């Protein structure tokens, strides 16, 4: 990376995330002016316009792509219309050890004097929680499920290529056309549509103003600039901001700047989950790149520099501050913009191009938290593409993650998308499948499968609180067969999913009525054509998700019950209960029995894996196909972000040998340390889940850098990936193990039983090496990762 990029990157890394109340203040002023005087969509649009007209324009020294969400890099806005933070919240954000935000005294003062008095009791969070039943609240506080819309808006969508083909002025013409076609004689919704479309027009115009303000500011700076080189750069930036996003971009640089204005619009309008994302960036940019190179107006080095400047922009925008359970389920600064690289073109041919490789180089050079990246791997993509990505993965950055594009397309087709829409789709957030630019694929909350089992074992009661929150499905001490237990579990599952979906349906309506997002609606097909908001079914496809968590832990727990209690009778239900209630305190031996002598998921063992399939089927059957409020349906996916930690904290000891409060298994990965037959067995087990019936699954694999050493290591990793994808696996991510982890593995070998390290000439389980050798490998790993 060159000096400019190095400097921008360093600044982005060194700047401490802080809270900026500028947005909150402007939103409050706008609401005070307009609330009650105009329709809700227009209120939202006028608020957005007020923001775009008045927020601070920030141009950082040396940058080539401009625009910040806050008044400065890492200065993070709040969204009081969604969640009005208390002063105590502000203190917590400021003081907490991880994911903290600097809050200055002035911010606290504004919060106390301006924000709280206006928003307390009327934010979406208040509205939403007040609309939930006692039952829902009990489940929520018991940790049965989380609620995504509690502090952030639905969002969860990705740009397609339309913003490179049309400027905002073109899109405004589309909106006007829809307005003209409104039929006030026959269409009972004509008025709502008119308000929504008018709101879209106001928002489009607002972003034009926002871009123009950047152009003006940059032009002013150019005039004052003494350095002739920077002066010229600033003049060029001003020209670009005059041009886009008003008109469709003509060059590579205009394309990047155009996207960035759309991105800022989306994340300023609302605090959308997973921010926003350019999706298939390499494919969208390639036509511009090719043309610019052919015309001689861009060199590959210049393209790379621009992309790196673009990268820094993402890293400058941490996920807005979260508190409480929302922080527990997603405890990170990352805002999950997850750029897709490779995959297929809309016509179904190999989509890997020069830029795909350039993006991989950029990931390796930049080494920053945001944006996240993934490769989309099709059987039609060359091995070279995977191997180049594997070189980056080997560096231990945890990036890029690896997706099976052929499976993603099949998942989308199964859900009824057209083949072109499916091929233009991909994955975003963590692993979620979506038709980019055309779908609202909204995650509504994590669902704690293991907690439901615990409540089943207690006949409907939550042992942590003694509250009866489930239904009474019988005392399992009197169950005579495993089937009886499974039946009871399924009844509890239905009970809790009913409660979750009932709540979801209300929340979905609340957002449609009170918190439309007209700017986002401009970008997502077919909101303009339908005259409907993104939150109200305007998108071409509308899918809601509930995310299952803890499949490994519940499988192993059920397997232990089946094997030891019902079949081998090594333990009576009473003995097991006593041991669990005791948190294995006086019975490490039974814990060892449960840990070591039980068939476990992740070992390609049909006994355990068929239990995983049964739980998956039950979860799928209960949710898949239920109607949502936008004319679409519910689907499932299997991912946890950081929720497996929180969900584990609300559950006592479990029959898989897990102690009270310990983490659950993450994604569809086996319980930490339960897989003892290596990566091929894990892959075989995981592939027994029918991934094509989900909208995403998450599998993590750990390796040490030595296993991936040399060309051979890369080739073998490629084969491992290809094999998993032949089996329809959706996603796999490789954690290349750090020395720090190895040290933990040394201290707690039982938790790292599955950790394979490359010794010399061969690989071995880390736990089976003597201390001396372990030390040596730790030292070597540290060396290798430097």
């Amino acid at each position, binding site marked *: 990376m060159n000096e400019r990029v190095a400097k921008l990157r360093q600044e982005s890394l060194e700047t401490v995330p802080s809270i900026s109340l500028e947005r909150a203040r402007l939103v409050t002023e706008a609401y005070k002016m307009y609330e009650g005087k105009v329709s809700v969509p227009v209120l939202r649009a006028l608020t957005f316009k007020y923001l775009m007209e008045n927020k601070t324009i920030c141009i950082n020294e040396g940058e080539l792509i401009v625009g910040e969400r806050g008044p400065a890099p890492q200065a993070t806005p709040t969204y009081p219309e969604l969640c009005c933070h208390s002063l105590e919240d502000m203190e917590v954000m400021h003081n907490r050890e991880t994911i903290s935000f600097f809050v200055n005294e002035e911010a606290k003062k504004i919060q106390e004097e301006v924000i709280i008095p206006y928003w307390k009791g009327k934010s979406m969070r208040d509205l939403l929680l007040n609309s939930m039943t006692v039952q829902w609240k009990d489940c929520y506080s018991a940790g049965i499920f989380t609620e995504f819309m509690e502090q952030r808006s639905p969002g969860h969508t990705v740009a397609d290529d339309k913003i490179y083909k049309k400027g905002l002025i073109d899109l405004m013409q589309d909106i006007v056309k829809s307005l003209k076609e409104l039929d006030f004689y026959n269409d009972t919704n004509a008025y709502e549509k008119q308000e929504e479309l008018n709101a879209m027009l106001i928002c489009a115009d607002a972003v034009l103003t926002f871009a123009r303000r950047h152009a003006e500011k940059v032009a002013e700076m150019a005039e004052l600039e003494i350095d002739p080189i920077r002066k010229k750069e600033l003049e060029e930036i001003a020209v670009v901001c005059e041009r886009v996003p008003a008109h469709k971009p003509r060059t590579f640089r205009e394309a990047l700047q155009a996207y960035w204005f759309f991105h800022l619009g989306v994340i300023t309008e609302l605090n959308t989950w997973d921010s926003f994302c350019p999706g298939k960036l390499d494919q969208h940019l390639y036509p511009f790149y090719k043309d610019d190179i052919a015309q001689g107006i861009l060199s590959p080095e210049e393209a790379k520099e621009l992309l790196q400047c673009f990268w820094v922009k993402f890293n400058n925008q941490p996920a807005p501050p979260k508190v409480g359970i929302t922080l527990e389920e997603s405890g990170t600064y990352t805002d999950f913009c997850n750029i897709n690289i490779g995959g297929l073109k809309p016509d179904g041919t190999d989509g890997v191009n020069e830029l795909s490789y350039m993006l991989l180089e950029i990931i390796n050079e930049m080494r920053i938290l945001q944006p996240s990246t993934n490769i989309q791997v099709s059987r039609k993509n060359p091995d070279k593409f995977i191997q180049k990505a594997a070189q980056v993965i080997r560096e231990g950055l945890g990036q890029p993650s690896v997706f099976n594009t052929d499976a993603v397309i099949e998942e989308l087709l199964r859900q009824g998308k057209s083949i072109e829409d499916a091929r233009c789709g991909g994955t975003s957030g963590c692993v979620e499948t979506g038709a980019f630019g055309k779908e609202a694929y909204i995650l509504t909350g994590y669902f704690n499968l293991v907690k439901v089992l615990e409540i089943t074992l207690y006949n409907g009661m939550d042992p942590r609180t003694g509250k009866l929150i489930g239904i009474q499905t019988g005392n399992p001490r009197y169950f005579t067969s495993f089937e009886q237990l499974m039946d009871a579990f399924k009844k509890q599952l239905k009970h809790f999913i009913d409660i979750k979906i009932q709540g979801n349906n209300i929340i979905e309506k609340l957002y449609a009525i009170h918190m439309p997002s007209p700017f986002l609606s401009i970008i997502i097909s077919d909101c303009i054509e339908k005259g409907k908001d993104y939150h109200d079914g305007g998108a071409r496809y509308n899918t809601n998700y509930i995310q299952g968590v803890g499949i490994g832990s519940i499988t192993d727990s059920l397997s232990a019950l089946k094997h030891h209690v019902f079949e081998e009778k090594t333990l009576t239900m009473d003995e097991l209960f006593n041991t669990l209630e005791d948190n294995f305190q006086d019975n*490490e*031996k*039974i814990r*060892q*029995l449960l840990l*070591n*002598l039980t068939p476990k998921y992740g070992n*390609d063992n049909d006994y355990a894996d068929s239990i995983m399939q049964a739980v998956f089927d039950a979860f799928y059957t209960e949710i898949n196909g239920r109607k949502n409020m936008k004319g679409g349906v519910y689907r499932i996916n299997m991912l946890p972000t950081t929720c497996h930690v929180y969900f584990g904290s609300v559950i006592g000891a479990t029959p898989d040998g897990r102690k009270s409060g310990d983490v659950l298994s993450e994604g569809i990965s086996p319980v930490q340390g339960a897989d003892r*037959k*290596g*990566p*091929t*067995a894990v892959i*075989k087990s995981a592939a027994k889940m029918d991934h094509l019936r989900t909208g995403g699954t998450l599998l993590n694999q750990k390796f040490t850098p030595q*296993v991936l050493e040399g060309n*051979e*290591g890369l*080739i*073998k990793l490629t*084969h*491992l990936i*290809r*094999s998993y994808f*032949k*089996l329809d696996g959706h996603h796999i991510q490789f954690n290349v193990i750090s020395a720090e982890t190895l040290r933990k593995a040394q201290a707690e*070998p039982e938790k790292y039983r599955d950790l*394979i390290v490359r*010794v*010399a*000439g*061969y*690989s*071995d389980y880390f736990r*089976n*090496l*003597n201390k*001396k*050798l372990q030390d040596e490998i730790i030292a070597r790993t540290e060396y290798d990762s430097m």
Partner: protein
Amino acid sequence: MTSGIIFNIQRYSIHDGPGIRTTVFLKGCPLKCWWCHNPESQNIHQEIAFWPDRCLDCGDCLKACADKALTRKNEGFLTDKNKCLLCASCAKACFTEARELVGKQITIEEVMEEIKQDIIFYDQSGGGVTFSGGEPLMQGQFLQELLLACQKEYIHTTVDTSGYAPWEVLKGISKLTNLFLYDIKLIDEEKHIKFTGVSNRLILDNLKRLLAEKTRIIVRIPIIPNINDDVDNILKTGRLMRSLGLKEVNLLPYHDSATGKYERRAETYHLMQVKTPTKEKMQDISSILADLGLNAVQQ
């Protein structure tokens, strides 16, 4: 039904032949190399292994042992090998797997079932199965039938051998396997006897005779400091290979990973003080072999 004794089946084995492989470790070896990193593989019979760090000191093994072969000692439980009939009741009674039965009597069908689980990975990567040990040729009949069974499934096979076996056995195997990983540890016969317990004559004769069978052979040299890493031995090995028309050679640097195993087995380990050869040393050896026109790969 033919059966044999194995001590491990390792899936995702990526250093024992091409592609992603499953390595089946057959138990029993006629050699007793000083550097052996699988001492539990040498004895062809089953044995009980003890892992002191896993032991909870619960005493269930004592209760389970009908032969009264176990006694409690400070550092765990000791087995009196004269009394132990290898019934494995102590291992069955142990929930922490601190006592493990090493070696499993297993049928061809059972081994094949495990092997077949990873076919998709072999197909994808050009991998297959490697039979290693111990010395797999010690169970010639069992190995032959395993190789035949793999052939039927179109699975690529590799035999990792010391070459120390009757020629008839090796010849029979050579018709059934796709690849040999063939060890040449030392050229000097006296040293070979000292450090491995047997003469190398049979090994070298077998290698020469094997050439006529046209099976692909990759020579493997474990590089053990101060035992076989001298220029003389490396040069002689390389020249022998060249004279036989063998091109491919893998170099395996010694590693002290087995120290713990010897401790657990209460056996003397001769190489206690020996260090892993340096990268430079390995590079030097590679160069010597490369200068002879050989294709040397470090592992």
